[in-house]
């Protein structure tokens, strides 16, 4: 009986670790997607500002809060990495539209990852609840209740 309970605890603990690892991985993916989306949003915003600027002057951050006022030679020509390590030249408006589409795609991907994350979190909660049940029963000197569901 004790061995059986120990074995169940071992297996549940392993599942919990697995779920934890998967959630960690998905959480990293979510963070990457969010970073990518924010980067695309910033780029689109910069292109908008540049298009509206009369002489193509923008602030170029060089790090540590320092910026330079620079003049962009060709504000309407954007070199854009479209995927597969390929860079193409696009007009400002086209590049902005591409970036906005990319943001939408990333939002959709983020939603899917978040759904998977939620599903795994639910399963992990179930396992944690069962482990808790077993621990409490053992502490009270009772046989753990049979798993439900």
């Amino acid at each position, binding site marked *: 009986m004790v061995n059986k309970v120990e074995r169940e605890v071992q*297996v549940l603990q*392993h*599942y919990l*670790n*697995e779920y934890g690892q*998967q959630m960690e*991985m998905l959480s990293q*993916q979510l963070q990457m997607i969010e970073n990518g989306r924010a980067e695309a949003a910033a780029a689109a915003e910069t292109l908008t500002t540049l298009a509206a600027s009369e002489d193509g002057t923008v602030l170029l951050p060089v790090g540590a809060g320092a910026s330079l006022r620079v003049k962009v030679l060709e504000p309407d020509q954007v070199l854009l990495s*479209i*995927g*597969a*390590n*390929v860079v*193409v030249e696009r007009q400002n408006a086209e590049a902005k539209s591409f970036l906005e589409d990319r943001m939408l*795609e990333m939002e*959709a*991907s983020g939603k*899917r*990852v978040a759904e*998977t994350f939620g599903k*795994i979190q639910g399963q992990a909660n179930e396992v944690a609840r069962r482990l808790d049940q077993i621990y409490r029963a053992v502490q009270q000197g009772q046989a753990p209740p049979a798993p439900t569901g």
Partner: protein
Amino acid sequence: MFEGLKGKLAGVKSRLGGVIIENAEEIETPVEVTPPIEAPAAVSPPTEPADAAPDEAPSSSPADAAPGPSVPEPEKRTLSGFFRRSKAGQPDEPAPAEPPAPEPALPVTDVEGAQKTGIFTKLKVLVTERELILKEDDVREVLDELEIVLLESDVALPVTEEIIDHVRRDLVGRHRKFRESPDEIVTETLRDALLEVLGAGFDLPGYIRGHERPVRILFTGVNGTGKTTTVAKVGAYLKREGFSVVIAAGDTFRAGAIEQIDIHAERLGIRVIQHKQGGDPSAVIYDAVEYAQAHGLDVVLADTAGRFHNKQNLMNQLGKIRRVMKPDLVFYVDEAIAGNDAVIRAEEFDKTVGADGIVLTKADMDPKGGAAISIAHTIGKPLVFLGTGQGYDDLQPFTPAGMVADLLGTAEA
């Protein structure tokens, strides 16, 4: 799986179909038909009176009297014009619905009757068909769009170029009879182009059945791509296919890896051979092969620790594993969501340790499909499995026809 690419390909298909409709032309082609005496209304009989010379109609060549295929009609018409014209040289003359019957008042001899029948046995009529001849300019814009769609989906540049070239070759400058819908023409062209780059696939059960047992399969790849789970999934798949399997817990480096594969194997009812963490993976895998030989098992699946190809000490370790295990197959495992990076890594891995097949995990999370499309063509090794979820059954044996059908939204050929 690959939803983004599917949606974009559907858009390209639709635009290419539009180009075909715009450029399809009706031409007149002489076709010999042999209608019954009571010709159907759709095929108009000749309009000669019953007492005309019997040889007149058959002897007149349509090429002499009417424009042939070399003189296409400039105007575009609809398919409703099929069989509209009945006789060479008399295109606009209205035709009776039925052939004229012999006059009862003027009986004919049997010979004459036979000759009259001959009039109808071989009719040369002009059939209006639609023919498709696309020029480079007609498709340039759509092909540019297809190129961008593929590149945006992380399909490697050489593979994209191959697909575009195939589509161009298939459509531009060729006379094609346009009897099917434009959607069918486009789908067929794209299907052929994708099948060309996807290669032939790999039938693992077939390979095992035709090979000396135990078949030894080594799984390699970079860290965190899901190798251990993939080993378990492949084990479950092979068990379902009726093979006996043993797993070697060859990832002795990562904390928890042995326990992980142990639990997987227990749940699947598969024997696992393991040593302590930090042990020599070659020894574990050697023991697993010995075990399989001693017990007459069909397959040894060897898990290994994840490593990057530029870590020389780890690559040397893999070299030792290869010498000890003598694998029949080396499967490189990477994640589909890595896109073009997965393709580049697979290429590097193939150069350094070799690979016989590829497994792409997390394909269900990948909206682009670039890695799945590019990897086989780029490294010249087949894609074997796609991991599509968290469960043991979420592993699809990769079939090029299946993937293309899925991408193009058609039934598998």
